[in-house]
């Protein structure tokens, strides 16, 4: 189906749509395709990398706007319609395109007992800008306090929490350092990723909204919606040393959480204790009458944004009659498993169904 890429010249590559999708649009699917293609055609690597470098050389500083921003520009233009064109560079460009909810509490008691100098050394290693040229705010009042950052992001600091942020964000990154707990509302800017550093882990904002919190010495990140990736200190260090763009962080999506196990220095991914409904489902869609079980699983996946893994062949004769109202996810799973003589477990933030089938009719 694909063109005969083996015969392509450097110039042919630069004009190939699939290739341009990868290099210019940074499309992840195309990237996967080319990575795989290169693995099986190492002899073409020279040409491919040259074509890639050629397009990169022509590229400009990445000024690309996200789909959301483009949609809002379109809306603005259509709405202003016949009005006089206003000088646009006078309009404020700061717009909260995504609100992100973060609460970080990171082994607070543990941290204060550490000598301050060693914490600062660690911080300087991760983010030099936060170690030299920064502002620091501590909330000593009993009620939460709002801090607005220069990019328009708003951080709600909880009591006894401290936030450190650079006087000027670097051109490529927005980084802050937190001890305690905070709630973040981040202005979306794909060109400048937002990082929340803490002593043990770092969280990168990839998507829209999430919640992070921690207990005792073990930091914990919970995602309500959207996507974040979480890295241990060690991961970050390794990634920076190897100059890799991709490192070994854990990506979390809605209703997933990750706990930092200090003793083992690793992150363990699972499902949050109380998964929330992400997508409101019409009541009648929760009335199941002799419905194949996979339909029920699909409905749960849609509702909670979590993956349900099961063997479709084993469960093909399982039918469910039930009606859900306001049970939690786990109550629903228990009910379904009881009816179908199955069990479930949570592995790596996914729901695994163990079924022996329903063939006794």
């Amino acid at each position, binding site marked *: 189906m694909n063109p005969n890429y083996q015969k392509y010249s450097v110039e042919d590559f630069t004009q190939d749509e699939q290739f341009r999708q990868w290099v210019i649009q940074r499309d992840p699917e195309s990237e996967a395709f080319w990575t795989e293609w290169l693995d099986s055609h190492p002899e073409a690597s020279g040409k491919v990398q040259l074509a890639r470098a050629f397009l990169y050389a*022509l590229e400009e500083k990445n000024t690309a706007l996200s789909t959301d921003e483009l949609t809002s520009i379109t809306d603005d*233009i259509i709405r202003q319609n016949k009005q006089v064109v206003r000088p646009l560079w006078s309009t404020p460009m700061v717009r909260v395109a995504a609100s992100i909810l973060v609460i970080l509490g990171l082994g607070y008691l543990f941290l204060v007992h550490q000598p301050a100098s060693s914490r600062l050394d660690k911080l300087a290693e991760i983010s030099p800008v936060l170690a030299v040229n920064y502002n620091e705010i501590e909330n000593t009042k009993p009620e939460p306090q709002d801090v607005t950052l220069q990019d328009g992001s708003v951080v709600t600091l909880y009591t006894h929490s401290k936030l450190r942020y650079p006087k000027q964000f670097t051109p490529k990154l927005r980084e802050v350092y937190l001890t305690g707990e905070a709630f973040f509302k981040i202005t979306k800017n794909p060109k400048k990723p937002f990082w929340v550093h803490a002593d043990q882990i770092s969280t990168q904002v990839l998507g829209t909204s999430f919640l992070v919190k921690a207990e005792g010495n073990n930091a914990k990140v919970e995602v309500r919606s959207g996507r974040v990736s979480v890295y241990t200190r060690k991961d970050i260090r390794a990634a920076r040393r190897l*100059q890799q763009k991709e490192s070994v962080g854990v990506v979390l999506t809605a209703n997933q959480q990750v706990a930092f196990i200090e003793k083992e220095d690793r992150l363990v991914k699972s499902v949050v204790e109380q998964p929330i409904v992400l997508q409101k489902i019409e009541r009648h869609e929760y009335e199941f009458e002799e419905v194949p079980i996979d339909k029920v699983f699909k409905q749960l996946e849609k509702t909670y944004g979590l993956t349900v893994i099961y063997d479709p062949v084993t469960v093909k004769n399982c039918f469910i009659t039930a009606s859900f109202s306001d049970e939690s996810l786990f109550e629903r799973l228990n009910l379904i498993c009881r009816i179908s003589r199955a069990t479930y477990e949570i592995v790596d933030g996914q729901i695994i169904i163990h079924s022996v089938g329903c063939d006794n009719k």
Partner: protein
Amino acid sequence: MAIRPNPTPTNTDIQLWEQLKNGNELAFGKLLAKYFNPLQNYGYKFVRNEDFVKDCVQEVFIEIWNRRDRISTPDSVRAYLLSCVRKRVLREGHRQHIIREDASIDLENELTFVEFSPEWLLIEQESVAETTHRIADALNKLPKRQREVIYLRYYQNLERDEIAAIMGVNPQSISNLLQAAFKNFRDNWAGLLILVNVLGHASF
């Protein structure tokens, strides 16, 4: 060097344009979503000011939308948009003294097509980064107009006639410019290919 047909189907653009002329908001949105970023990229080649370029591109779209019942359909939507942005960036930039202080200078001849400077790129593979810089260096030795032709031909993936329309010269001159550019540049290709092969082993 053969110029091959543009692989992107252009008649869908024409269809969207026709719908846009009838006030179809969806079609307008699709065109904007497709071209806004490449247009910004081009504008930035002349004036290195993000907000300024963004506003220029935005105004091109505002004008198109506001004059939708009067505008004609271009042969190539992409080329038309690029040429609108080019004109506006140069005119506005000039008016605001972003490009240069002296307003009496003839724009066409004095246009600033800036040097390629891929420093901002975060390229994960060192070999690719190295090659990128070498290519940029080689390209920066070319005269401005050859540089712009190369950019439009390869980065914007345009045909010769489209480039000619944007730069306001005849298509034959574009062929000549491309040929000249490659004559200057070609010797480096062979060397680069060897370089990539050597460095490339570590990463793939």
